[in-house]
């Protein structure tokens, strides 16, 4: 499908996993993509309609520079996918405050700063589309239900869920043409999760998912592309749960 011709997207954490699959999907649908990541881009073969900016999503000065880079390179921003995220687990009585802050800084500050600094440019660009501009914040099923010893991660993703709704209401109330929704993936076969999970953990993810398997990153990317497009023109403040049935139980 080509639903996003002429549109410009920013994907944070865009080099790996869900972010990388999202970049590929948005390109397929005709968008140009600014790929933001903490890692260096290298020679990753993403193609001509992309640009790369190094971005630590928890650093406000870097956000100002990133948005200026988007403005200079593309002149507009129609789609923001706030995808960058890290884990955050451990027994609550032993978690160091700095580890707690590290998770919240990336997973929550990163989403806040993304919206704060992209909104002006997106408000301009959104007027060109029936469905406006679209912000897609990547939460998780761990923003809806909890797991033991996932306190920092649960807290960060739950916060993203309601930050998303509050932002959606604020922009709708201000008549800004920007929709804001959250995506809640279940367990996805990302490099990060596969590298950090032992066999028991992987078996738990699979057995706990009614569909009996983990998701491919491309299946989350397809959901993100739907929200990015005018097909979701009446959706704002919603949660798109893509979890193989995990939270239906």
């Amino acid at each position: 499908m080509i639903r996003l011709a002429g549109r410009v997207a920013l994907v944070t954490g865009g080099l790996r996993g869900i972010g990388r699959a999202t970049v590929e999907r948005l390109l397929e649908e005709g968008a140009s993509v600014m790929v933001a990541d903490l890692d260096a881009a290298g020679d990753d073969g993403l193609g001509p309609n992309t640009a790369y900016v190094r971005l630590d999503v928890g650093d406000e000065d870097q956000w100002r520079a990133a948005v200026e880079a988007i403005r200079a390179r593309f002149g507009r921003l129609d789609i923001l996918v706030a995808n960058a995220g890290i884990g955050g687990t451990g027994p609550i009585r032993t978690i160091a405050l700095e580890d707690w802050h590290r998770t919240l800084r990336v997973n929550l500050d990163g989403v806040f700063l993304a919206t704060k600094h992209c909104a002006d440019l997106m408000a301009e660009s959104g007027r060109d589309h029936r469905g406006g501009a679209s912000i897609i914040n990547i939460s998780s099923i761990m923003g809806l239900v909890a797991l033991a010893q996932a306190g920092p991660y649960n807290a960060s993703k739950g916060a993203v869920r309601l930050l998303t709704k509050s932002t959606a209401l604020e922009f709708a109330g201000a008549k800004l043409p920007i929709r804001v929704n959250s995506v809640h993936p279940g367990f996805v076969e990302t490099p990060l999760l596969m590298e950090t999970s032992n066999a028991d953990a992987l078996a738990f993810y699979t057995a706990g998912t009614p569909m009996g398997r983990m998701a491919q990153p491309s299946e989350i990317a397809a959901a993100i592309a739907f929200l990015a497009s005018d097909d979701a023109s009446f959706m704002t403040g919603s949660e798109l749960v893509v979890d193989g049935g995990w939270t239906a139980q």
Partner: protein
Amino acid sequence: MGGGMDGTVALVTGAGGGIGRATVEALLAGGAEVIATDLKAPSCGTLNLAQDVTDEAGWAQLATVIQERWGRLDCLVNNAGIATVSTIEDNDLASWRRQMGVNVDSMLLSCKAMLPLLRESGKSRPGGASVINLSSVGGLGGAPFMAAYCTSKGAVRLFSKSAAIEFAVLKYNIRVNSVHPGGIETAMMDDIIDAYVRLGVAPDRATARAAVDAQHPIGRWGKPEEVASGILYLCSTASSFMTGSELVIDGGFTAH
């Protein structure tokens, strides 16, 4: 939209109404063949039939028709529904049962009758066969003067989740999701506005309409096409990891 549904066989109930008709049109535009039903046969589908969704024998006949012509069903859109507007004290049992019959009994009858055809699709369709049940924002939160309707739509929400898990556990490769529209520009919403005036809840249509408008942060009601595009996403392979989920298309209604 466009594309992505070539060769898909879909059934849409309530296809004479706003969302139903828009869904049929979106599926056809995407390349699907669509069986469209309503109490009075609609005219928008590949095949158009009269159907009372509360009639079990009628469901069996419809399954036979689809079996003989297509041999499978890829997408089932259970859209037919009615909305009772009444105070609880004036809601008579016959009206209550009618509300539950059309909105809830139909879900069971539909899934039962279509299951063999859906399973056949699930054997080969990438992303699996897809059942989409129309709930409402009224299936997520209560509303005054709509107890029967909200009860029925809440039931649709959890029927969908249960069916989703059951079909997953049974390895049928059939996904089941619910769709929750907010206020949409349809004849049903017009009737609801009229009923508010009739009940004396609002002095006139403009006031009743303004009250409903105010519940939608986006500042307007949705168009049937904006629900149809969400349904099409759930029909398509793009939603291959979604089952038991709620697609809320409500302009922010339930975000506050």
